[in-house]
């Protein structure tokens, strides 16, 4: 499967370039050509696309932000920063008095409105951006930038763990189904059909809400959340793997593998799985964006990553409802960055996934 690619400098050595030819001894084509492995070829094609480079850089930046950032930040995830602002509250009062109208000489009702202005007092929450807190503090007095970093940590880690489990499960059932066919295929594919017909978000919400009712402590609940996302997400990968395996099973080299009497295990793991890997990697990358979206939506609804822990979705949920109106209107520094982070992470995964797909299979370019 190695591919021959002529380097640019070899053009000089082509026979029609007479002057050069005289000075140097003739170099044969096979000596001057460089062998590039398929992997390098894929990488080359991947880096040729601007969008995938943008995606990769964004993703690396997000990783640095989420995993190195908290080490640098002086604040903790659930640390009251003690940052405060001075607030004066203004309370309007209204009184109605009987007063003599001098023009008409009659008693009239006159309404007076006066404002009671309190002394300035300290409020330890929702402080505006400052040097110490580049994005201010939120309604609990936590540093927004630091919460953003920890939220990224949760989202990215959770996304990778979930997609990894999904790939393992999907690959197992998909390859079983595609390789053995027959009733095994029938059973597994019907189960996959069932999972495909479940409504995406509502069923996640049902499961998450039920687990919410179990009264599990927050730290453990994140693992349950991963479990739910995996349980309802593996079917897509299983279907993809099955389709690929069905095609590969009929190829000549599989017939050869059959003829050499390899064991089934060896045929599946050494000969089939490596050839399905490219499609799985593409699907997994694209799927990561979806998982981050699901997780943040659940967190937004209050049934995802539980409270003391930071999550991007939770930070945006502070805008919801009547009590969130104030934050929505006056404190974009609390919720807009979180949304931008979600969009950037999901976009990055989508760009990389698209780039990988084009790189693995240039014919499939969309």
């Amino acid at each position: 499967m190695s591919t021959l690619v002529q380097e640019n400098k070899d053009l000089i050595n082509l026979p029609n370039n007479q002057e050069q030819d005289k000075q140097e001894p003739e170099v044969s084509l096979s000596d001057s050509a460089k062998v590039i492995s398929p992997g390098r070829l894929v990488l080359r094609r991947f880096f040729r696309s601007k969008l995938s480079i943008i995606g990769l850089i964004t993703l690396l930046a997000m990783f640095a932000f989420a995993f190195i950032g908290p080490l640098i930040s002086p604040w903790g995830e659930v640390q009251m920063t003690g940052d405060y602002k001075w607030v004066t509250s203004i309370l309007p009062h209204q009184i109605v008095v009987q007063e003599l109208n001098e023009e008409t000489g009659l008693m009239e009702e006159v309404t007076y409105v006066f404002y009671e202005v309190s002394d300035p007092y300290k409020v330890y929450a929702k402080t505006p951006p400052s040097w110490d807190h580049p994005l201010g503090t939120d309604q609990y007095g936590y540093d927004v930038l630091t919460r953003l970093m920890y939220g990224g940590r949760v989202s990215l880690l959770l996304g990778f763990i979930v997609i990894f489990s999904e790939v393992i499960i999907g690959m197992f059932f998909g390859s079983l189904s595609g390789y053995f066919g027959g009733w095994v295929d029938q059973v597994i594919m019907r189960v996959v059909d069932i999972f495909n017909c479940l409504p995406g978000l509502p069923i996640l919400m049902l499961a998450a809400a039920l687990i919410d009712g179990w009264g599990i402590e927050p730290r453990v609940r994140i693992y349950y959340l991963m479990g739910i996302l995996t349980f309802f997400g593996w079917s897509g990968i299983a279907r993809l793997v099955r389709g690929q395996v069905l095609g590969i099973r009929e190829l000549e080299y599989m017939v050869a593998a059959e003829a050499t009497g390899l064991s089934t295990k060896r045929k599946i793991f050494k000969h089939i799985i490596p050839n399905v890997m490219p499609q799985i990697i593409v699907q997994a990358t694209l799927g990561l964006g979806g998982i981050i979206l699901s997780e943040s939506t659940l967190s937004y609804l209050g049934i995802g990553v539980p409270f003391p822990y930071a999550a991007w979705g939770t930070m945006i949920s502070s805008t919801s409802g009547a009590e969130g109106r104030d934050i929505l209107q006056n404190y974009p520094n609390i919720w807009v960055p979180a949304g931008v982070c979600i969009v950037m992470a999901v976009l990055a995964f989508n760009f990389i996934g698209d780039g990988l797909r084009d790189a693995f299979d240039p014919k499939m370019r969309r």
Partner: protein
Amino acid sequence: MRLGLIIVNMIKYIIKRLALSVLILFGVSIIIYGLVRIKPGLDFVQAKYYAQMQLDETGQVAQMVERQREIYGLTSPIFKGYLKWAGNIVKGQWGDSFIFSVSTGEVELLVDAEGNPVLDAEGNQLTKPISSSNVLDIIASKSTISFIIALIATILQFGIAIPLGITSATKQYGVVDYSVTVLAMMGISLPSFFFGALLLRIFSIQLGWFPYAGLSNPNSNLPILIDNIHHLVLPITVLVILSIGGLMRYTRTNMLEVLNADYIRTARAKGLSEHKVIYKHAFRNTLIPLVTILAGILPGLFGGAMITETIFSIDGIGKAAYKAVTMGDIPFVMAYNLFLSVLTVIGTLMSDLMYAVVDPRVKLVGGK
């Protein structure tokens, strides 16, 4: 003779697909029921009425709880319970919501303890409107507004996405193509709750162009329809922008595939105008794969948009489902999930059948 064969094949195919759909729904219901049952300790009905049962001395609450548990088969072990619950579902007894009730439009005549009608001062019998908490009634009453919104959004979505997808395919790697691709990506990547909040912040609070929430404003002097449309601009924008990306990419991919086909080269070689080649020869063939999209539309049309409806306070089925989840109204959430699954299954069935009708290359193989 041939036509008869086709019809027989068609019927066989439909029956086979129907059987499969029933099987899938069976599986879906097992998963939903299993999810509800794996909870350790008190089940959801007991948990809901726990405090009331402690205070209750007459035993009425306990009776009511037992009746409710009966419907969901919670009194039996899980396997028997499932059969009981599934039987009730088939019979149309989907249970009662904990938090919602709708007026059924009927009235109940009030009678006193001895069975005599209760009369008011003018001698008319007093009546009481009957309200129902049956989840099916609630789903039916709430999904109307969701359906209207989703219908408008879907029409707009197709009307915008398909032409854009075609343009970006015919001018591949052009400026239009790149901007469409990036826009589509943005649409796929934006979470609805963030996009909705952003639109509210900018267009409703800051600029004041659109109302903040709800469906109509009682103080508005606009005609009711215009007022409703005014309220729906932002939610529909969210729905359209978020769903347009996928369809646009899908159209583009299909169009590119078709444009590379031999018969397009033939059409061009014949000397047809480019317009004719694209809209008569190519576009019609891209419609075939678009039929599969139908499967996804149906649940979207009737199932509501949970997040968008909640953000914009539209009293549709999506908002109801959201409220049910946050307030632990498990009966409603179960019914909602089941309802959506049924819609998905019907949608898939319809798209399969449509595919067979639209694409003459698809052969229906029924029976064996």
